């Protein structure tokens, strides 16, 4: 199996986000970056696929030199090799990112591609499906159960209040999310081994974004919280406020 997993380096979910001077991007200086949490499920599923069906796992990321850290983390978990599609351009437009990834993956004789369902940060949640569409292969989003054989896949994806079941031939693309598996932690040995694994770099050009970030703003501040009472005795007052003041019930 020729297995690809596409990952992204993103700000830690705890990070304090500050808007940069240009008003369109965030200050990255003091932020701790991590492998996108949803991508951990993608890497794990790629490794399990390899353990079951054999083959090779290639990790791809697109971005500047920081993106290499995400690839190293995935290689520390067990992926065989890395590919950094290097660009200094802002990767704001999911369609342009997907085109660059599809150009690279399309010619590789790929069997399975995994993505996290979305990257925390920009939260577009589009690139995996875009790549599948551009490659003309089945693409299934938000997969929460997957059974792969050498030629085909079946499994389930999450929908409102439940799941729906799917079947498709390979090659195919899956976006992964919580519930699919328990991602392994990279061991110390894995981290050491990752340093010696091949990480290829290729320069890519994205072109002009059709999705333009005009401005970042902080969300409107919520009113300061207000405690209306203590214990069960305050239940009546709460219900009254919800009915008469907030008028939401």
């Amino acid at each position, binding site marked *: 199996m020729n297995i690809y997993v596409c990952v992204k380096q993103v700000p830690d979910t705890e990070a304090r986000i500050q808007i940069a001077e240009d008003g369109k991007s965030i200050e990255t200086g003091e932020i701790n970056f991590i492998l996108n949490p949803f991508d951990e499920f993608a890497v794990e599923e790629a490794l399990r696929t390899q353990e079951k069906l054999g083959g090779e796992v290639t990790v791809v990321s697109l971005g500047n030199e920081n993106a290499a850290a995400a690839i190293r983390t995935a290689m520390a978990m067990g992926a065989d090799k890395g590919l950094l599609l290097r660009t200094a351009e802002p990767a704001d437009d999911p369609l342009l990112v997907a085109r660059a990834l599809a150009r690279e993956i399309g010619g590789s004789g790929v069997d399975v591609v995994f993505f996290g369902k979305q990257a*925390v940060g920009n939260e577009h949640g589009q690139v995996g499906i875009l790549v599948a569409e551009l490659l003309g292969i089945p693409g299934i989003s938000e997969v929460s159960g997957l059974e792969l054989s050498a030629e085909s896949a079946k499994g389930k994806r999450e929908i409102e209040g439940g799941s729906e079941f799917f079947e498709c031939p390979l090659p195919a693309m899956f976006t992964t999310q919580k519930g699919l598996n328990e991602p392994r932690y990279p061991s110390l040995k894995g981290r050491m081994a990752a340093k010696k694994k091949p990480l290829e770099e290729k320069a890519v050009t994205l072109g002009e974004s059709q999705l333009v970030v005009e401005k970042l703003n*902080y969300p409107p501040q919520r009113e300061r919280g207000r405690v209306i009472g203590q214990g069960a005795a305050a*239940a009546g007052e709460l219900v009254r406020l919800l009915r008469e003041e907030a008028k939401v019930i």
Partner: protein
Amino acid sequence: MALKVLVVVEAREGESLKKSSREALGLARRLAGEGEVIAVLAAARAGEVPGRLAAFGADRVLVAENARFANYSPGGFAAAAAAAAKAANPALILVGGTALGKDLTPRISARLGVPAATDIIGVELEGDKIFALRPAFGGKVQMKVSFKAAPPVLCLRSNVFDSLPENSGRSAKVESLALSLEEKDLALKITGAEKISGERPDVAESNIVVSGGRGMRDAASFKLLEQLAGALGAGIGASRAAVDSGWRPHGDQVGQTGKFVSPTLYVACGISGAVQHLAGMISSKVIVAINKDPDAPIFKVANYGLVGDVFEVVPAIVEELKKHS
């Protein structure tokens, strides 16, 4: 002002028109001004749906009927949406933010070669330029975007935009949309579905959400929240701690690595309010917090905070609600 807007709607066989589709139609109607609102429907049988689409704001309905569309067909529905866009030539395409809508949005983008933006919470027009607002970085910032190619595809967050009141006096021109489906469009098959959450509405689509966290102590205690949700007609959510403990299914998780919700009322029970949880619910209109720790960060964002034991407070609220109903 006259703008032609295409709305990709969702109505599964035997189910009513999705709330998110009604919200998208309402927004489309307001943005269109004197212009036309066109709905595209992919279904096994359109049945009564075109009439309902008209009642909620559509002027014209393009129907792609196909026996294969009894379940969601990602390739088939995408082909229908793309064909409708080519036939109608809209300035803007709107999609409701359901699981289906989120899956379909990038497909339409790829097929038309146009930009798409997801989780939209605001849309503005300046002349003929379209601006959309979306949260990013777990809601810590809001991103205003514009588009250099038309029509952009906007996937809307549920519960943010108002639908129009149903007007059964409105009518729409209904046309059938001819599709030539390719083999690659049908290679991926959805074969069926299972419901987990039973009778409760889904957390992302509910007007009211009752959510439980670590303070619930175990899975059985969520019965208490089921009672409160029942009394309020609410959906049930959970914090990451509750989901990771195996008390609730993953689909219920609200937060940065779960779902982003914007209900009218969010009731946080035994949830401390970690920043990752706040990311998922901070845009709720009214937040109620019940927690025995008066220093829990959730109280900083709660419109109505109640310090106390959820096991005492929640039954008391259920009693109060019953009294007045």
